[in-house]
């Protein structure tokens, strides 16, 4: 008995090391980010978040255009990706003949493994010309009364970056949502059919209801990916520090400005402002994650471990 107790204890202690090491890691990152951005924090204070100039020559820095760009591209990407991703997942899990489903699932996993620089190159050579010659003129012609679709049409810009992000995150949404839907116990679905439910009723009342927590989890994962994406976005967003209502105009994201300017940042304040951008990026991710979790709670009625009510 006592021997078992001891080994149990050791096992428990050893296991506990892993989650604690994650905590230490996050705390360490946070500490390092705050410490290294102290010069910028003390110079610009909270104003850093609401200031829309980024002038390395005169060392005048503000993060607002980057926060704006990050949020807008990620949200537009989600709007585009969620219907496609969840729809595809439902089809693959519920409707597609098994061989088709298997082949498409493999392709989806392949898509998820493509490095984003490849997506970026594809963006420059295929997506951007298509945006400039077809998609944006169309949107401008029929939806030009909306402020989102006005202004000069360069091809590169916030809309191109959002579509690119949507394409990058769709495989994640499909892959995870499909697994979630497949995990719905068959017995629930069969009971619904036994009660005379149509396929649509079984799907909307049983499958999606049971799986909504998991699907929202997939969306959060995708959102995190979208917020942190660097290369593909940097290559086609136009990298212009300004805030504009139009999705046609060039923009900038938090991750992009770090990737673009870190190597050549030559003064302490400049470096520290870039590190503070990293800190802001971390905080934006945390806040978006918390909001998404609150959303799950409200959807599931406060009980996130049990999807069915």
């Amino acid at each position: 008995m006592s021997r078992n107790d001891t080994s149990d204890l050791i096992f428990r202690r050893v296991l506990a090391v892993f989650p604690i090491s994650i905590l230490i890691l996050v705390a360490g990152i946070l500490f390092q980010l705050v410490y290294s951005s102290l010069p910028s924090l003390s110079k610009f204070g909270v104003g850093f978040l609401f200031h829309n100039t980024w002038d390395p020559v005169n060392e005048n820095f503000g993060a607002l255009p980057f926060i704006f760009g990050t949020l807008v591209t990620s949200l537009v990407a989600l709007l585009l990706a969620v219907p496609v991703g969840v729809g595809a997942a439902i089809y693959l899990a519920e409707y597609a003949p098994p061989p088709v489903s298997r082949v498409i699932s493999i392709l989806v996993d392949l898509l998820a493994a493509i490095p984003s620089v490849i997506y970026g190159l594809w963006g420059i050579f295929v997506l951007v010309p298509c945006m400039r010659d077809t998609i944006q003129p169309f949107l401008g012609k029929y939806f030009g009364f909306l402020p989102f679709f006005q202004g000069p049409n360069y091809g590169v810009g916030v809309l191109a970056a959002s579509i690119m992000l949507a394409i990058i995150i769709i495989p994640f949404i499909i892959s995870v949502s499909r697994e979630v839907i497949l995990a719905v116990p068959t017995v629930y679905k069969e009971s619904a059919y036994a009660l005379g439910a149509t396929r649509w009723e079984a799907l909307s009342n049983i499958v999606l209801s049971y799986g909504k927590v998991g699907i929202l989890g997939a969306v959060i994962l995708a959102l995190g990916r979208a917020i942190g994406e660097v290369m593909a976005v940097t290559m086609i967003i136009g990298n212009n520090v300004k805030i504009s209502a139009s999705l046609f105009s060039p923009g900038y994201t938090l991750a992009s400005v770090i990737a673009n300017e870190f190597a050549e940042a030559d003064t302490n304040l400049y470096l520290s402002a870039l590190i503070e951008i990293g800190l802001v990026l971390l905080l934006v991710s945390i806040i978006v994650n918390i909001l998404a979790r609150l959303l799950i709670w409200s959807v599931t009625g406060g009980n996130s471990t049990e999807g069915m009510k």
Partner: protein
Amino acid sequence: MKRIWSLVAAMAMVASVAFADTTLINGAGSTFMYPALTKWFEVYSSIDPSVQFNYQAIGSGAGIQQVTAKTVDFGGTDGPMTMDQMTAAPGRIYHIPMVMGAEAIAYNIPGVSNGLKLTPDVVAGIFLGKITQWNDPKITEQNPGVNLPSSSIVVAHRSDGSGTTFIFTDYLSSVSPEWKSRVGKGTAVNWPVGLGGKGNQGVSGILKQSPGSIGYVELAYAKENNLTYAVVQNQSGNFIEPSVESTSEAANGVAIPDDFRVSIVNSANPQAYPIAGFSWMLIYKNMMDSPAKGKAIVGFAKWAVTDGQKYSAQLDYAPLPSDLVDKIQKKLDMIKY
């Protein structure tokens, strides 16, 4: 079997002796210089096999920081160190010019081929966002007979911090007082207008994809990618095509100070192309703490600015003018090791 083992042992001994005699030199910095350095390292390894080089192209700013922190033996930079940076360094640092490069102003105007004539006024006006259409009278009056469209101008610039941007904004600052006060010069600046592309390939991507666009790229890059580029009016009023020769001329019209920390944009030489710059190797004057490294670096630098220049010229870098090379060699002789 025994013989094989003794052979292996002998080889191991040879290898260890060779290893012990090799001096490893670490450098970091400018990406602009990187292709030239790589070529030089390759050729130099047969001239002096006892020296081995390792260079990280992490950008000029990072190169300056690493050399200041002495984590590397030499740095590479496209913009000279500022006085503040010089005083922050633990010892006196020499700037040794290694290569010269020029920037082409490339454009994509349907129906217009190479050789659009641009004045400094026009270049500054376009990048300040004041000249917005290709058929602006300021452009057309210099280009009679060229059919310029009424389309708007799409400005492309580098989004990543780079020495290329430093040289270009240095040029704009020297020809336009308004640019100097509103924007200034640096490896990254607050651009009044335009789209940012990452790297030379990002800018040329925008240029190729957007009719009506204009941007600056390294001359070698513009040539390799068959971009159309402008002839630019220099200080003497001549329109000069960017080339290896006209870039070398840029160093001839400028008084070169003893520390070589000089900008050669907007050169007074009538033959010079106005948008050109040096890339410097950053070397400590006093390397007595590691004489072997000092000897190796000085030996390499002397070779690179003389015989080595013909290898960098193959890569479209402009060769250093010969009187400058003499001065550089005298400077290298002052390094103590």
